[in-house]
């Protein structure tokens, strides 16, 4: 066992973990952040994406021990005071959600794009999000939602 100290959605945690545990397992099984989804457990589908110091990472192939001192964000941390984040709002409004299993990961990757402050063409949006598999939507409305969130962020910044 080893000690792990990190923050999740702004809250500090100190845990004893098994060195073999993935960040996904620690977040889901120990801390009950079940918004972090497991789709393949080997880094193929992107459902388990979390933001580690702002960067989207597949938490299923990231050892929990590596998260020492880091700031983790999960989908549960996006809404503030009961209000959806602009990215969440865009996913809802564009109808980008069907079964919802890939949604948390996609919302987090889109959040990282928005927070980067960069602008993206539609083709670049497709490339940026291509690490996420979705079987329900054909990705159409997901790309629409990401574009909407990026557009709104840009307008907000102007």
């Amino acid at each position: 066992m080893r000690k792990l100290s990190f923050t999740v959605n702004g809250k500090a945690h100190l845990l004893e973990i098994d060195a073999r545990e993935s960040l996904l397992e620690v977040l889901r099984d120990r801390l009950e952040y079940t918004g972090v989804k497991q789709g393949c457990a080997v880094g193929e589908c992107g459902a388990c994406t979390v933001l580690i110091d702002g960067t989207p990472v597949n938490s299923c192939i990231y050892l929990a021990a590596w998260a020492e001192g880091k700031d983790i964000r999960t989908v549960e941390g996006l809404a503030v005071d009961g209000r959806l984040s602009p990215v969440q709002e865009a996913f809802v409004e564009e109808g980008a959600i069907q079964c919802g299993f890939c949604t948390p990961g996609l919302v987090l990757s889109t959040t990282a794009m928005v927070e980067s402050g960069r602008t993206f063409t539609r083709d670049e949006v497709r490339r940026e999000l291509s690490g996420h598999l979705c079987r329900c939507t054909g990705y159409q409305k997901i790309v629409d939602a990401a574009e909407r969130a990026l557009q709104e962020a840009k307008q907000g910044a102007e």
Partner: protein
Amino acid sequence: MDHNVVGKSVRRLDAIAKVTGRAKYTDDFHERDMLVGKVLRSPHAHARITRIDTAKAKALPGVVAVITAADLPTIRFATAGHPWSLDPGHRDVEDRLILADKARFVGDAVAAVVAEDALTAEKALHLIDVEWEVLPHVLTAEDAMKEGAPVIHEFRPNNVVSSFGVQFGDVEAEMAGADHVFEGDYETGIVQHCHIESMSAFAYVDTDGRVVVNSSTQIPHIVRRIVAQALGLPWGRVKVIKPYIGGGFGNKQDVCVEPLAAAMSLAAHGRPVRYCLTREEVFIDTRTRHAMKLHLKTAVSREGVLKGIHVQVLSNTGAYASHGHSIAMSAGGKFRPLYDFKAVKYEPKTVYTNLPVAGAMRGYGTPQIFFALESHLDDIARKLGMDPVELRLKNLIKVGHQDPLTRNVVRSFGIPECIRKGMEAIRWEEKRAALGAQDGPRRKGLGMALFAYASGTHPVALELAGARIVMNQDGSVTLQVGATEIGQGSDTVFAQIVAEVLGLPMDMVNVMTTQDTDVSPWDSGAYASRQTFVTGIAVRKAAMEVRDKVLEVAARRTGLRPDEMELRDRRVVEAALGREVCTLEDVAMDAYYDRLLAAPITSDTSANVRINAMSYGATFVEVDVDVETGKVEVSEIWNVHDSGTIINPRLAEGQVHGGVSMALGYALLEQMLFDAQTGKPLNNNLLDYKLPTLLDTPEINAAFVETFDAAGSFGAKSLGECPVISPAPAVRNAVLDATGVAFHRIPLYPQAVFEKFRETGLIKQRSVEHV
């Protein structure tokens, strides 16, 4: 017709739960002291177990139970998710045990371990000692039917599960008298559903001694029946709970993990046990879509009138029957209410092999047969020198058409308009005229294909749906259904139906999204694109009962007759004057608290729907073919649908986008591969199996032609499976248009396309000089 809520793109009810991560799926529930179940799988495609020793595994600290077939009831059961049939001749094939007594494919489950944690369970699997007698195996349907082929199930010594076909008219006479007879062979590959949530269940024995199974399923009421049958329990001793589910696509219209999860818990003295498949296991031990080989022979007049068709289908169902017999049969029923054949002879054969089990997958056999038929029609059009659209237009049925076999009547038929709309959207005439003859390394082509589909399964199977509505004190209502929300948006559509009938805003209609077989009304579940149509009828009936009761109470209050009033925007209104007479809240409060007459307003009803409605549509597609690499890319695609009234356009578009994407994977990328010698899977993961990513998926265009079908709620017909049917043949026909090369097998992945281009001389083999 003017509606307030129906026809509007209202926000889906579960959007907030899903976008905030609060929606709980099967694996998100934790019970105290929960154990983990893991399965030992056969490394052989076909093998008898001569000895199995679990002593060492049982002795491993942390192991709670190890079970094999010998520890379980020897009850053979059927897994297909259909309503039970009272007619024994109409039941699914009972060929399955919870754990196999003989391995019939690589991955067949032969033993299970229940342990305190996953690592201990994995370790224990390695300690189970199995002695195998390896048997000869067969992987193709042709081999399985040969004289002397290995027998996979003793009760089917020729490996043929079913060969029940249908016919009408005199096909032989049509062939004999026809100007032309065309024949063609077509073949489809094995693909997998790839819902992003795994197949998962957990089970425990409750304090009342009943077995509780929490499962990611499309069919909770059917799961209850099958778990009870498999374990030899009275049906009422089993309870099934279905929370949010992360996609199903037909795979979860089958009972794959629940009986074993229950058996694991029983072996662990009722402690909670989770049995969640890894992605690799999902590929091999759930279900796949049937690989089919289809031979079509068609009699055609010189003017292009289709006279008769003879279809022979060979369907590879793998090691267990699942839905196999039913799928090959069902596939033959969908094209008849589209093209007006005088004679049809449909001969399917569903065959056991030593491959993973094929079952229900979005389209239920229809993608296969329409790939064959719509490819065949383009081949015929080319031979006759006709435009492919013209050939189809010439042979369409008309409204009022009655199928001679099912007796289903076509009451709405939007195909001609779908074709017109699709041609216009893709600029069919203009682009085709501009293309002309091409001989460069990159060529463009246009293709199209049509489809027809049903709304539910009538008259083949029971179509029963339940709905229950309770009106709350403030006039809001809570709806319960046994039909399952699996991501398609059915809960939202049901709420829209209720809101429309009762004059309520959407936020006053609550839908209980979790099904619990103790509580939820009976419904067979999410399959056959049946819920908006079949369950929608039950929901509307329940809402109308509630409306009638509201008007009775309002009549008591006002002295007006019920038929003089209607419900609008949370109010009871005197219809002739548009005058509010009371609010819905007034009525509800009376119903709860009137000291003399209180009786809460509820409805608990069901609909046994003995009618069907055909849905239609067309795909129009433009492709870019790279002749030198064999890469086919879709540059523009339109799916135009006649699904009757569209109750929620945004959700409907979502169905089309997802279905088209799945169909493009089917057409161009996806196939499960097996080693030809051993039957071992070669690509059972999401990296090697080519599920379309964002970069493989083009922009997808959805359009609708709204007809009104009197059979459905507010005129609605089916949609869920429809978009997955016609894109594959349309893409294939576009490649034909681009290159003149007729493909007969999907997927059109670069290697296959390249090889075919070589074979047909499109790519010249360069002479190689050896030095």
